[in-house]
């Protein structure tokens, strides 16, 4: 009967279908996404470009960070279809969990669930950042395509990750305020947008605090720096 047959590695609703990995015709985010944790919350910064085969900008206004939980957000990195499906799946699981138990999932539980789905699911080549705030504070995780889940104070994923890391390294300070972290995330996304062909067209900043998730679009990083 129901609970016994539930595979712990799969979503409760829907199922993992066999989808073949597609080639260059699939829209990819390319992308630079940055997550920074502070005492007051988490800042997530992303660019806004989607591309085809790394040579054509197919969309200049993508919001690559979305709320998936009252106090957590996830970035879209990799195949757009895979990342969107991943977000829908996690969002419904987080909603079910909360309505059943009367309290939201912890960030660690959400990261574990995301790792299980990335490992077993048909999402392909996704490499999101999860940022969340719970009773234990602020948390940033990166989730790799094989389901690896790694927690860090700050992290970067996407095609511009090396450039953004260069901007972050040495600048991060665990005592920084939310505003300082927003500025740092903007600088890191800006650095990657200048040189990485998969990143650009302005940026989106999400702030996750115990009060919720706020997502703002900016045409130019200078508005924040």
């Amino acid at each position: 009967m129901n609970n016994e047959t539930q595979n712990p590695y799969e979503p409760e609703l829907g199922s993992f279908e066999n989808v073949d990995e597609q080639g260059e015709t699939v829209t990819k985010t390319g992308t630079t996404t940055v997550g920074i944790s502070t005492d007051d919350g988490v800042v997530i910064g992303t660019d806004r470009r989607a591309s085809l085969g790394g040579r054509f900008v197919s969309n200049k206004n993508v919001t690559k960070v979305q709320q998936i939980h009252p106090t957590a957000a996830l970035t879209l990195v990799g195949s757009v279809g895979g990342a969107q499906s991943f977000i829908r799946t996690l969002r419904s699981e987080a909603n079910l969990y909360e309505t059943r138990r009367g309290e939201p999932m912890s960030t660690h539980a959400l990261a574990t669930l995301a790792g299980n789905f990335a490992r077993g699911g048909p999402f392909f080549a996704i490499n999101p950042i999860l940022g969340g705030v719970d009773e234990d504070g602020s948390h940033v995780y990166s989730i790799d395509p094989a389901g690896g889940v790694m927690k860090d104070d700050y992290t970067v994923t996407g095609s511009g990750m090396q450039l953004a890391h260069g901007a972050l390294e040495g600048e991060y300070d665990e005592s920084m305020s939310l505003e300082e972290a927003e500025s740092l995330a903007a600088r890191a996304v800006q650095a990657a947008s200048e040189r990485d062909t998969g990143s650009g067209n302005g940026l989106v900043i999400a702030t996750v605090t115990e009060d919720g998730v706020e997502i703002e679009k900016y045409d130019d990083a200078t508005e924040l720096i």
Partner: protein
Amino acid sequence: MQGNQQQAYDRGITIFSPDGRLYQVEYAREAVKRGSASLGIRTADGVVLAADRQTRSPLIEEESIEKIHEVDDHAGIASAGHVADARQLIDFARRQAQVEQLRYEELIGIETLTKRVTDHIQQYTQTGGARPFGVALLIGGIEDGEPRLFEADPSGTPYEWQAVAIGGGRDDIQKHLEDEYDPEMDLASGITLALEALAAADDDLQPESVHLATVDAETERFETLSTEELEEYAKEADLGGEDDE
């Protein structure tokens, strides 16, 4: 023919009686009353689960009578009724505790654990050809640092309690708990109260026939007390046991 039809509702599990009752579920509750008693007490710093093991013969190995079971490090279950039915539910609960770890890497909450088990029990009251579980459970443990205690009955309804008894002699034990329970009591007082309450239904309660386990809020660990430890508490509670030695 007419007579058969009128009585059918107490045979089929999925059939309501004309006054809206499910007789098979009520009969399952009777099966619980035929079992020896178990109780649970929630104290300020942990949960106590205790049971009186009925022995058919002095030759039986007491250890083989299963009344209290560890589900995970931080949770335990006491049962009353059909032991074989209880074993199925205990194993279901143990697997659910591990599923929570696989899925979320977290300890399962006691309320969540209880509701998983009661939802499972409920399915056996609504499925053709099935028979309800002839057992009631007390599910206790620590959730987010807080002691929690729940009851699951054969209908699959979950109840949360401060202190509760199930099984044979339930009424006497519950009465004692209602008279003596204090939500501020510590774990040691909870153990003493558990022994006194079991003695309320069994004048000749022997410490060696009691199975008692605790889940301490501090350590979040399920631990079974030894007979020696129980004898110490029994002395404190001024119960029989040492008189016979």
